[in-house]
C-alpha cells in the first residue's frame, strides 16, 4: 500500500464518524432504535480502516518516522499557515485504540442506553466525539491539535451533561468545561510562544527550530515555559493535579461515556500530546511534568481507597493511572508511558464497562422491585454479584489483576517499566527526586488494595441487599465488549516474555525519539550514548532499540534495565501486600474495616472527602466574595475612615490570599473566576438604568475620564 493510500485512508478514518453524527442528528427521530445499529456499524467500518492503516504503517513502513502531508491553509500577512496530518507509529496504535474502544462502546450502548429518550442523540454525540478524538490523533501540527482539542472538549461537555435533568450532571459538565479552559489557556499561550518564535504550527518545523538552538525570546526559560504551557493543556484533559477535580464529577455521564472518554481516549489525549511533543521539553519542564504526574498518582490513589461509589473508585483510579503515565514521560520513560496508555485503555475501558454492566443489572433489579431510592452505584448495596453475574465477574477480576499489576497481564508489563524507570531516574538525578519512586510505589500498592476492596465488596460474599440478589447477567452486546477487552489485557499481545516487555513488538515500534532541545538544557542521561552512531536517525528505525541488553538509546534506559528486577520484586511485593490486606479486611474480616476506620478516623475522613478540595475552596471563596463586597461597601463609605479601613482590609486580604495559596484551592479558582465574572457583569448591568439622561451623564463622565486618563 502506498503512502498516498495510507494518507487517504487516514482522512477517511477521520471523516467516517462524522457520518454517524450527521445521520443520527438529522434522521435520529426517524431511525429510533436503529440509530444504535447504524452508529455501531459505521464504527465497525471505521475500526477496519484504522486497522488497515495501523497494520500497514507498523509493518510496511515501521522504519519511516512519519507518513504525512501538509498544505497551505491560508496566509496571515507574511505568515503562511501550514497544516496537515500524518501517521507515525504512536498515531497508528492510537487509531486502533480509539476506534476499537469506540466501536465496543457503541455496541455496549445498544443495550445500556436502550429506552433512553435521547437514544439517537447519544449516538450522534458519540460520533462527534470519535471524530474529534481521531482529529487529535492524526494532527501533525499545533493548530489542528488545538482545534480538535477544543472540539473534544465540547463533545465531552455534551456527553457528560447528557442527562442534564440531573442538576449534578449539568454542573459536572460545566465544571469539566471551565477546568479544561484553564488548561487550554496555558496550551494556547504555549502554542503562541512557539508560533511567534518559529513561525509555524507544524511539529517538525518547531522541533527543527528548537534543535537549531533558537530560543523563544532568546531565553531558554521561555522554552521551558512554552513546554509547561503546552503541558497545561495536557493537565486539563488528562486530569492532572491540580486540575483533576473535574474527572470524578464527570462520572455523572452515562457509564459507556465514562469508559470511552474518561478512561480510555480523551483523558489519554493529554498523555498523547506530551508524547507527541516529547522532544521539545527541557529538563526543567520534564521535572515539572514528573512531579505533577507523581502527585496526581499518589493523591488520587489515597482518595480511591475510601470511595463507596463504584464509578468514583474507578474514576480516581483513572486519575491515578494517568498520573503514572505522565510521571513516566516526565522521568524520561517515553515508551513505557505510552505503553501504559495503551494497556490501561483496554483494561480501564473493560472496568468501566463492567461497572456499567453491574449498574445496569442493579437498575433492572431495582426497577423490578419498584425501588426508586437506593443508589445502584453504592458498593455497599452490592455483594455476591459473583454468582448472579458470572461473566462480568470473571472479566472484571482479570482486568483488576491487570490494573493491580500482576504478571501475565499487560498492566504488569507497562507498570513495571514505569516503576523501574522512576527508580533509574531518581538514581541518576538523586536528592529529593527519590520522592518520586517512593510515591509511585506506594500508589501502586494502594492501587492493588483499593481494586481488590472494590472487587471483594461488590462481587464476593453474600448479597448485601435484596437488589443485589435479584441481579442477573446482561445480554451479549454488553458481555462481548468485556470479553474482548479482557483478552486484550493478556501480556501475549505485547511481548513474548511475560515479565519483560522490552523484547516485544511494542517497544520496537515505539522508540523514544531523540530530544530536540540543545544539550545544555537537557538531562545528560537522555542524550544519546556515545556509541558513535547518529541516534536521531536511528530513532526512526526500530532496530536500534535495545533488545536483550544491547545498544541502549541513552543512559537512562541502561539504568532502567539495571533496576528492572529490583522494581519487579518490589512492585510484586507491594501489590501482593495490597491484595492480601484487602482480602484480610474485606473477605476474611480478620481485621475489622470499621475499627480500622475508627483508628485512622482523621485520615479516612480526609480521604473520603477527597482531601477537602471542594470544601476548602468553598469556604475561601465565599470569604473572598464577602471581602469583595465589603471592599465595595467601603468604597461607598466615608473617605475619612478610608485609610484606617484600607490598612485593615489589606492585612485581611493578604491573609485570605495566603490562605488560598496555602490550601492550593484550584477548584476554588475556577468558581471564583466564574463568579467574579458574573458579579462584575451584574454590577455593570446596573449602569443601564433605562433613563436616557443618566446615559448621557455616563457618556460625559466617560469622555472626561478618558481625557484625564490620557492627559495624565
Amino acid at each position: 500500500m502506498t503512502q498516498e493510500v495510507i494518507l487517504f485512508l487516514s482522512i477517511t478514518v477521520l471523516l467516517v464518524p462524522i457520518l454517524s453524527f450527521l445521520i443520527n442528528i438529522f434522521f435520529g427521530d426517524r431511525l429510533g432504535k436503529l440509530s444504535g445499529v447504524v452508529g455501531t456499524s459505521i464504527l465497525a467500518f471505521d475500526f477496519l480502516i484504522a486497522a488497515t492503516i495501523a497494520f500497514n504503517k507498523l509493518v510496511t513502513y515501521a522504519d519511516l518516522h512519519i507518513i504525512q502531508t501538509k498544505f497551505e491553509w491560508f496566509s496571515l500577512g507574511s505568515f503562511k499557515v501550514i497544516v496537515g496530518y500524518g501517521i507515525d507509529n504512536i498515531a497508528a496504535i492510537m487509531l486502533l485504540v480509539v476506534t476499537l474502544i469506540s466501536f465496543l462502546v457503541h455496541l455496549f450502548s445498544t443495550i445500556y442506553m436502550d429506552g433512553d429518550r435521547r437514544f439517537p442523540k447519544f449516538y450522534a454525540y458519540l460520533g462527534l466525539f470519535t471524530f474529534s478524538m481521531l482529529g487529535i490523533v492524526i494532527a501533525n501540527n499545533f493548530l489542528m491539535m488545538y482545534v480538535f482539542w477544543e472540539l473534544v472538549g465540547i463533545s465531552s461537555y455534551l456527553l457528560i451533561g447528557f442527562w442534564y435533568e440531573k442538576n449534578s450532571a449539568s454542573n459536572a459538565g460545566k465544571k469539566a468545561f471551565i477546568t479544561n479552559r484553564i488548561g487550554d489557556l496555558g496550551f494556547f499561550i504555549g502554542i503562541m510562544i512557539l508560533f511567534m518564535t518559529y513561525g509555524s504550527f507544524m511539529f517538525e518545523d518547531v522541533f527543527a527550530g528548537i534543535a537549531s538552538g533558537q530560543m523563544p525570546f532568546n531565553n531558554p526559560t521561555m522554552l521551558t515555559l512554552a513546554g509547561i504551557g503546552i503541558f497545561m493543556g495536557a493537565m486539563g484533559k488528562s486530569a492532572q493535579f491540580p486540575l483533576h477535580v473535574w474527572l470524578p464529577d464527570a462520572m455523572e455521564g452515562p457509564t459507556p461515556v465514562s469508559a470511552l472518554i474518561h478512561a480510555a481516549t480523551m483523558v489519554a489525549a493529554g498523555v498523547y500530546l506530551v508524547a507527541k511533543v516529547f522532544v521539545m521539553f527541557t529538563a526543567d519542564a520534564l521535572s515539572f511534568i514528573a512531579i505533577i504526574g507523581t502527585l496526581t498518582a499518589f493523591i488520587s490513589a489515597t482518595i480511591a481507597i475510601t470511595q463507596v461509589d463504584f464509578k468514583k473508585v474507578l474514576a480516581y483510579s483513572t486519575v491515578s493511572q494517568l498520573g503514572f503515565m505522565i510521571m513516566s514521560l516526565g522521568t524520561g520513560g517515553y515508551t513505557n508511558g505510552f505503553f501504559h496508555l495503551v494497556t490501561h485503555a483496554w483494561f480501564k475501558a473493560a472496568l468501566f464497562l463492567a461497572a456499567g454492566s453491574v449498574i445496569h443489572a442493579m437498575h433492572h433489579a431495582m426497577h423490578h422491585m419498584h425501588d426508586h431510592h437506593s443508589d445502584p452505584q453504592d458498593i455497599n448495596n452490592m455483594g455476591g454479584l459473583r454468582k448472579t453475574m458470572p461473566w462480568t465477574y470473571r472479566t472484571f477480576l482479570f482486568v483488576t489483576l491487570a490494573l493491580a499489576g500482576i504478571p501475565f497481564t499487560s498492566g504488569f508489563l507497562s507498570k513495571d517499566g514505569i516503576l523501574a524507570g522512576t527508580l533509574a531516574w531518581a538514581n541518576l538525578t538523586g536528592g529529593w527526586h527519590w520522592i518520586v519512586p517512593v510515591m509511585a510505589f506506594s500508589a501502586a500498592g494502594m492501587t492493588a488494595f483499593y481494586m481488590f476492596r472494590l472487587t471483594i465488596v461488590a462481587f464476593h460474599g453474600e448479597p448485601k441487599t435484596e437488589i443485589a440478589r435479584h441481579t442477573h447477567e446482561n445480554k451479549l452486546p454488553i458481555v462481548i465488549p468485556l470479553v474482548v477487552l479482557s483478552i486484550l489485557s493478556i501480556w501475549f499481545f505485547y511481548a513474548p516474555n511475560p515479565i519483560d516487555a522490552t523484547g516485544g513488538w511494542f517497544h520496537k515500534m515505539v522508540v523514544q525519539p531523540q530530544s530536540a532541545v540543545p544539550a545544555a538544557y537537557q538531562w545528560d542521561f537522555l542524550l544519546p550514548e556515545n556509541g558513535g552512531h547518529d541516534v536521531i536517525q536511528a530513532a526512526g528505525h526500530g532496530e536500534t532499540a535495545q533488545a536483550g541488553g544491547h545498544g541502549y538509546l541513552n543512559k537512562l534506559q541502561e539504568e532502567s534495565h539495571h533496576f528492572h528486577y529490583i522494581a519487579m520484586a518490589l512492585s510484586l511485593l507491594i501489590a501482593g501486600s495490597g491484595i492480601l490486606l484487602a482480602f484480610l479486611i474485606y473477605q476474611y474480616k480478620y481485621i475489622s474495616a470499621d475499627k480500622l476506620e475508627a483508628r485512622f478516623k482523621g485520615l479516612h475522613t480526609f480521604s473520603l472527602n477527597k482531601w477537602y478540595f471542594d470544601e476548602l475552596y468553598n469556604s475561601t471563596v465565599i470569604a473572598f466574595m464577602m471581602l469583595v463586597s465589603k471592599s465595595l461597601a467601603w468604597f461607598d463609605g466615608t473617605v475619612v475612615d478610608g485609610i484606617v479601613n484600607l490598612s485593615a482590609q489589606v492585612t485581611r486580604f493578604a491573609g485570605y490570599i495566603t490562605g488560598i495559596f496555602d490550601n492550593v484551592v484550584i477548584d476554588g479558582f475556577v468558581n471564583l473566576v466564574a463568579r467574579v465574572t458574573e458579579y462584575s457583569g451584574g454590577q455593570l448591568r446596573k449602569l443601564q438604568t433605562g433613563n436616557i439622561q443618566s446615559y448621557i451623564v455616563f457618556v460625559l463622565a466617560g469622555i472626561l475620564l478618558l481625557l484625564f486618563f490620557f492627559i495624565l
Partner: protein
Amino acid sequence: MDLITIAFYFFAALTLGFGAVVVLSKNIMHAAFSLLFTFFGVAGLYVLLHADFLAITQIMIYIGGILVLIIFGVMLTTRITGVDVKSGKVGIFQLTGAIVLTLSIALLLLFVYTNTHWYQPESIPMESTAELIGTTLLTRYLLAFEAASILLLVAIVGAAFIARKKH
C-alpha cells in the same frame, strides 16, 4: 470702551443670561421664550463676527422655524393649564452629576481655549459674505448642499409618518 466691545458684552450677556434661564427656569413657557432671546443674542454675535448672512439665517430659521416648532411641541404635549407646564425635578443624584459634570466640562473647555494657539492668519475683513457663501455653496459645497436636501426630505417623510394618526 468702543462700540464693538459694548455690543459684544451686550450680546454675550443676552445669550448666556437667557441661556441660563432656558435651562434653569421651572416654567417651560418661560424657557421657550428665553430661548428666543438666546438665539437673538447669538445672531448679534454673528453680526459682530462679520457673518451677516448667518445672522439673518439664524433669525429666520431658528426663531422663525425651530422655535415655533418647539413651542408647538410644548403645546401639544403639555396641558398648559395643568401643573406640568412646570418642568418637574429630576433625581438628586442625577442633578448632582449634571452640575459636577457640566462644571468640569466648562472649566476644561475654558482652560483649553485660553491655552491654545489657534489657527489665526492675517484677517481679511469682508463687507458682505452673502455672495461668497452663495458661490461656495453651489461650487465646492454643492454635494453637501444636495445631501442636505435629501436629509430634509428624509426628515419630512419620517416626521410625517411618525406624527400622523394611525392608518
